[in-house]
């Protein structure tokens, strides 16, 4: 069993060897070319290493993966492609939160505390940018608008997930209400919470903005949206991961380009290496 006849070897070698088996000179030429190519690549890499090795240096490379995910997933999606919804008996008993007012890395915010102390009666949502009728809406006006309730899973990028019921105005309806202009391509969200003195902001494209499950939520589990979940108003964008669901909104803005939003990165977290398209 362990002995192999030379004839077997020959036959295997003959049947599987490619017809154009390279000679010694061809092999040496190939090795030389490979060596030259590798050296050239090595020199280019070494020269640019101080830049490439920094996190912002290789960020454009990582962005390729984010764009690829966006292109592939979006090409398969229809407007009616919905995130799974759950039953009321599946609601999480103690839905955790991350970020927003009260989080360890978010600044203390006396102005916000004053708004909260008066149940956000002094708060208004500004809707502006590329819309026909820039407007301001109070919380009561938003509550009087058409609303949708959905029981969905909040998926934190850290890995945990919980199920909650969100009630709010479909963003697509509101954008229609203020007359979003045809040349608008993205919606930018500005939040009241600040990190290192900078207000949190992020953006989504119009596919997500007009998706039926994308809400400006003012209710959680049948009650008024609590501070820890983003009072008075938060974004629910169910096709993307947790951190895209901005809390404590005060202004939304329709724009035709993200070139001037967060240095072209579209948001604050994206400047720390987080994905802009967080659907994958």
């Amino acid at each position, binding site marked *: 069993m362990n002995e192999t006849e030379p004839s077997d070897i020959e036959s295997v070698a003959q049947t599987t060897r490619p017809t154009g088996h390279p000679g010694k000179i061809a092999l040496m030429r190939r090795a030389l070319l490979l060596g030259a190519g590798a050296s050239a690549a090595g020199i280019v890499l070494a020269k640019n290493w101080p830049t490439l090795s920094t996190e912002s240096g290789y960020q454009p490379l990582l962005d390729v993966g984010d764009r690829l995910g966006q292109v592939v997933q979006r090409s398969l999606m229809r407007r009616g492609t919905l995130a799974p919804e759950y039953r009321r008996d599946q609601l999480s008993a*103690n839905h955790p939160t991350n970020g927003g007012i009260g989080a360890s890395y978010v600044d203390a915010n006396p102005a916000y505390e004053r708004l909260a102390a008066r149940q956000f009666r002094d708060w208004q949502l500004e809707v502006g940018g590329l819309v026909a009728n820039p407007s301001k809406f109070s919380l009561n006006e938003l509550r009087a608008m058409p609303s949708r309730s959905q029981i969905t899973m909040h998926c934190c990028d850290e890995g*945990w997930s919980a199920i909650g019921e969100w009630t709010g105005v479909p963003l697509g309806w509101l954008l229609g209400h203020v007359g979003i202009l045809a040349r608008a391509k993205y919606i930018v969200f500005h939040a009241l919470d600040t990190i290192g003195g900078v207000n949190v902001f992020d953006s989504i494209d119009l596919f997500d903005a007009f998706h039926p499950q994308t809400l400006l939520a003012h209710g959680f589990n049948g009650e008024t949206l609590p501070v820890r979940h983003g009072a008075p108003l938060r974004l629910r964008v169910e096709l993307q991961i947790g951190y895209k669901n901005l809390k404590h909104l005060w202004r939304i803005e329709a724009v035709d380009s993200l070139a001037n939003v967060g240095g072209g990165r579209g948001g604050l977290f994206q400047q720390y290496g*987080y994905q802009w398209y967080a*659907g994958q």
Partner: protein
Amino acid sequence: MPMSTTTISRVYRHTLPVRLFHWINAACFVMLLMSGLQIFNVHPRLYWGATGYVGMPAVFEIAGDAASGGHDSWIQIGSLRIPTTGVLGAPTDVPSFGRINYAFPGWMTLPSGTMSLGRGRGWHFLVFWIFVANFAAYAAYGLFTGRFRRLLLPSRSELRPRAVLRDLADHLRFRVPAAHALGTYNLLQKLSYLLVVAVLLPTQILSGMVMSNSALALFPWLLDIFGGRQSARTIHFVAAALLLLFLLVHVFQAFVAGIVNEMRSMITGYFHLPEKPNHE
């Protein structure tokens, strides 16, 4: 006295596409594993079912007593506690998290810094697309050329109990079967390659898709297969561990069979057969 010469015969064992698939896959696997550990480190707890967060019972956890000033760390699986002090869960000061037990050491992760979640995810997604394109090309090649049927499917005779026992005995004695030299695989090799190619790698792709909000909206039946998002995350981790185990055994076996010859055949395609004296 008769003349004695030595000839070296060689077999063309791995075609160029197979060698490319192999090395691209190897590089992708290492990067996916390392970036996966970076992501895992932010929430080193695994759950079963739809939801999971701190406060819910974990089925697996890398934890310790760093928060209360201790030096011990452990893996908790149900009621089983395995000490890992000095190996996993090192007490580490992390900005905005405080002093925590950091599950996998920085040198195992991509990028190597602590809590580099955004860029860990960035690497994971970028490499995923390279991996999945390579895997799809490999699968098409294997099906189209008949390679899978020819090399990976065990024959009826191989599955006879006697043959299975002999193959097991060969492995336990680290004896390399003669079939190996001819570029065919023995039974355990076939089964382990099949497990990787047909079970573990597809499991990783599908369980990863459960954790992608948009992919899950597109393919909600994935939830039924994996029994919830947190179950899928747990399976993703376990399958990654099995793939790492395969990698370690695979490299060990290459050493047992002769690392120089094995590496040569995986790089140049040519496997040198054992020398045979020719008597004339």
